[in-house]
């Protein structure tokens, strides 16, 4: 049984489907990378797992289970207890998720309190232990700090400390390092992966940095305009992409071009709410699109382990199937 399993999850805001029938699963001890352009539904889909989509947003799914427990059927209170302890999330913007009015120590202890018992002294000791774990030097002296007194890398580490406070079995990290410099990013990612390995946690890493996912994820999901267009083992997806969008994304990276040559840019832009095309959502931009693609939405091909949503998936040479 997978740790997290979702089937045909959709999230709509009015007529707009921000997340459109996505299915995936996360195993214990697995790092799953989710990549895709801005606005492709990476954050919204994760927030819906956490039960954090507010009215008028609407979530539906054929299946949404954590460790065999049905998240949709369980009482609100029980779900809230589960998300926050067993499932935790590091949010995209750390500055808005740390409360500027309270000290770091207070916020960590509050997070601990909601899910575990203990007297003041015990909780404080646990808070210090957490800050030590995430590599904050002299943690005791930091408990009294307010968020603005911390550097970007430090507040990110405090965020991580809070998210692992209750020993989650699944951690969703939404762009945990985007605002940080590369050397600090490397420190934070090392930290996350080390925690993940030690505790055999499931880790969902959301980012638009393809190379980062290529380095740390076991499996990867590629999203485009609210849909999953391709998924599979990271090494396979990056070496032999089957979806034209994945192929185009990889080709557009500077490291894919030699010398000072032009980059292979996919023409056009991602469809928005009002210009969603018929058929395959990539069809207006896809170099391989046929009339069929422009009329009929492709089904997902293959089982969940290696899936592609394209009428003519690419072969190992990167050419569309006949």
């Amino acid at each position, binding site marked *: 049984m997978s740790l997290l399993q979702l089937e045909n999850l959709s999230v709509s805001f009015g007529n707009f489907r921000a997340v459109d029938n996505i299915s995936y699963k996360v195993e214990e001890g697995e790092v799953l990378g989710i990549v895709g*352009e*801005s606005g492709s539904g990476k954050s919204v889909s994760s927030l819906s797992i956490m039960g954090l989509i507010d009215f008028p947003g609407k979530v539906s799914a054929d299946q949404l289970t954590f460790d065999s427990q049905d998240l949709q059927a369980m009482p609100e209170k029980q779900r809230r207890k589960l998300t926050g302890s067993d499932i935790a999330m590091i949010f995209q913007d750390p500055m808005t998720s740390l409360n500027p009015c309270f000290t770091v120590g207070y916020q960590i202890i509050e997070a601990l309190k909601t899910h575990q018992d203990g007297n003041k002294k015990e909780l404080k000791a646990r808070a210090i232990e957490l800050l030590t774990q995430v590599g904050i*030097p002299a943690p005791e002296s930091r408990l009294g700090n307010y968020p603005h007194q911390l*550097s*970007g*890398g*430090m507040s990110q580490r405090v965020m991580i400390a809070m998210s692992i406070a209750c020993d989650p079995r699944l951690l969703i990290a939404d762009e945990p390092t985007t605002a940080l*410099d*590369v*050397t*600090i*990013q*490397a*420190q934070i990612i*090392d930290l996350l992966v080390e925690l993940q390995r030690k505790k055999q946690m499931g880790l969902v890493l959301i980012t*638009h*940095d*393809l*190379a*980062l996912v*290529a*380095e740390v994820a076991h499996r990867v999901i590629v999203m485009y305009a609210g849909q999953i267009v391709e998924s599979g083992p990271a090494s396979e997806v*990056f070496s032999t992409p089957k979806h034209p969008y994945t192929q*185009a*994304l*990889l080709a*557009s*990276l*500077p*490291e*894919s*071009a030699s010398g*000072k040559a*032009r*980059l*292979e*840019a*996919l*023409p056009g*832009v991602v469809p928005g709410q009002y210009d969603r095309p018929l058929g395959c959502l990539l069809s207006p931009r896809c170099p391989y699109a046929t009339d069929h693609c422009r009329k009929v939405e492709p089904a997902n091909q293959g089982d969940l382990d290696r899936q592609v949503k394209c009428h003519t998936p690419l072969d190992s040479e990167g050419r569309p199937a006949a």
Partner: protein
Amino acid sequence: MNESDSRLILKAENLKQHYHVKQGLLKPEVTVKAVDGISFNLEKGKTLAVVGESGCGKSTLGRMLTMIETPTEGRLAHLGEDLLTLTKDAQAKLRQKIQIIFQNPYGSLNPRKKIGSILEEPLVINTSLSKSERKEKALSIMEKVGLKAEHYDRYPHMFSGGQRQRIAIARGLMLDPNVIVADEPVSALDVSVQAQVLNLMMDLQDEFGLSYVFISHDLSVVEHIADDVMVMYLGKVVEQGSREQLFENPKHPYTLALLSSTPQLSPEKRRQRIKLEGELPSPLNPPSGCAFNGRCAYANDRCRSETPTLRLDSSEEQEQGHLIACHAVAEKRIGTLVEGAA
């Protein structure tokens, strides 16, 4: 001027920008050395990339090069003319030749103005072109950057991030500059849009012989677009050289750490990660000696007391212009470092 001089568009010598910052009522004023002695030559049609972590002074350098701010010290010459000693009028004229594209494509365009007037504004201020001439010019530049004529009457919020960056580039081109300072022009963009904008910049460089000062913290972008590279750390250049020198034969421990921390798509290109300890130092309270010493594996007592100067690497006399500021390199305490994959 001889041949090589006329190709030299911009020459910076020992540029400094020191800010005096009040810390509170009772505390004394402190000096932030945002940029502390930077020199380079930029030739026609070339790209100089400036890399380094947040707060190291990249944008401050950009503001000095475009004369938005006057350096507290140093010399800056455009085609041999000293920019800092000119009269205000002469300065204003030369200023048109060096344009800047800002970091954030969302914040840098006035939301209440249509694209047409955003583009024509510099012409209104700096030229005597008539209304119809201005419009003609705007439309021709819009075409160059891949915008359509129908966009002329639209407002910035109607455009995607990539299109807004095209507008910003178009605005930079309105006064026929020969140098463009691009401050993180693609950092806020998705990779596929980033590719479109980088292609555009390279095409314009070919067409107009533009020189770029390209500020970025993304080394894969820099490796693609730069001719020369300057690596900054806390206001100072720690390593400077050609793209080949920097990427194939990096020397400074910070450059090595940067390169090894940058995620790589292909497993063959991954480098053995050099793990840094500690946080970025505060510019308000910089460490003594080498600014990198608190995070550097090679730091010794000399590093903690004496600031290393930028100098040619003695081990490679035949290689021109590869400069490094590191005691360990000068003392040959660092051998060849970066071995291939991890």
